[in-house]
């Protein structure tokens, strides 16, 4: 019941809710937000647009894509901090339905247990999003860490990890300059043995000086 994955889910839901509340006055979030939450934070337009057709078959979200003003009032739990779009997006995610009421109570207990890499990735993402939110003109979103990309498969595609509104493709591409990654080789390890090694020597035995012998040889002429 309280497996690490479930706790992670609850943490991510909490993060998403906090962020939604902060975003709510500015940006409308529909059911698309719940679906696109499985997309990494730095995912741009194409992935989001691919998720757009999905809200239509979902019955409760007949106002999908219209934003919080068009969303029906929530009757399930109605916590003050929960975004309206969460009610719209609730049907596709039974896991979230099960744990949604609990996070405000259990949140303080989360740091007491060991933090998994997944949580680290989530918290890192939350920090990045919190940094980005207060600015009126949103700062460029940092590229997603590798760990953040790894959590998408584990979430099974149903758990919202971030409900941050997707940036328009043009804006996202303009704010994320491509930085080349330079991979330097490791410095060579110093050898404890000399690289050059002599295996044999020789010492010819010849009398007289070399100069005398050479001079004699050079003075030779044909008969």
């Amino acid at each position, binding site marked *: 019941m309280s497996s690490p994955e479930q706790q992670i889910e609850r943490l991510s839901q909490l993060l998403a809710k906090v962020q939604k509340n902060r975003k709510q006055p500015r940006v409308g979030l529909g059911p698309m937000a719940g679906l696109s939450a499985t997309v990494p934070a730095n995912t741009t337009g194409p992935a989001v647009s691919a998720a757009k057709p999905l809200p239509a078959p979902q019955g409760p979200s007949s106002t999908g894509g219209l934003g919080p003003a068009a969303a029906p009032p929530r009757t399930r739990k109605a916590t003050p901090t929960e975004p309206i779009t969460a009610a719209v997006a609730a049907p596709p995610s039974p896991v979230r339905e099960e744990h949604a009421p609990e996070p405000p109570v259990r949140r303080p207990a989360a740091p007491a247990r060991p933090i998994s890499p997944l949580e680290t990735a989530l918290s890192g993402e939350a920090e990045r999003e919190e940094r980005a939110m207060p600015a009126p003109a949103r700062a460029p979103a940092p590229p997603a860490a590798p760990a953040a990309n790894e959590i998408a498969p584990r979430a099974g595609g149903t758990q919202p990890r971030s409900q941050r509104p997707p940036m328009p493709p043009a804006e996202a591409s303009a704010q994320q300059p491509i930085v080349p990654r330079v991979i330097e080789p490791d410095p060579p390890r110093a050898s404890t043995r*000399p690289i050059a090694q002599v295996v044999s020597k020789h010492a*010819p035995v010849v009398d*007289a*000086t070399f100069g*005398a012998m050479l001079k004699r*040889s050079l*003075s030779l002429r044909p008969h």
Partner: protein
Amino acid sequence: MTDAQFDPGGFFQFDLAHGRVRTRGGARVLVLAENVLAPLIVTAVQSGDLTAIRTLGSQLGSIVSQSLPAPANSLPPQVVISYAGSVMSLYGWGRLRLEQWGGALVLVVDGLPPLDEDNLAVAALLGGIFSTLCSAEVACVPLARSTKYIVVDPRIAETVWGWSKSGDNLATIASKLSSAEVA
């Protein structure tokens, strides 16, 4: 006799971080496979220009002369050959020995890789080494079907080369040469 010996320790400095190999004197060298060098030498022989090989010999001769405790002409032959042989061995040019046939000085190089058919490249190398080492122009004429090179005056090198190509062995060639005058 002298106890002086060539010290090969640390002769090559392998700078692996920068991919460079330098000699003790600071000259940069490249390590080549013999099957890469051989066709280059054959091409040089066919074009009749062994200047590069002789230049290499001059560089080796300079290394030898700088390592010797005294000028080569004043040292015992075994010391000079030991130093010269050590440097040649370090560069992978085989094992150098010295023979004396009457008045003729004969260099023997064993363990050479197969380069050109007539051993003209090694002859040029030896000529460069001993010309620089002794401050005198020296020609080393390869003797056919052997690993020996007779040290002669460059002016008679073509004649001796002709004898060797015609089949004369070293004893015959040595007997054809007479010591004109020894100071």
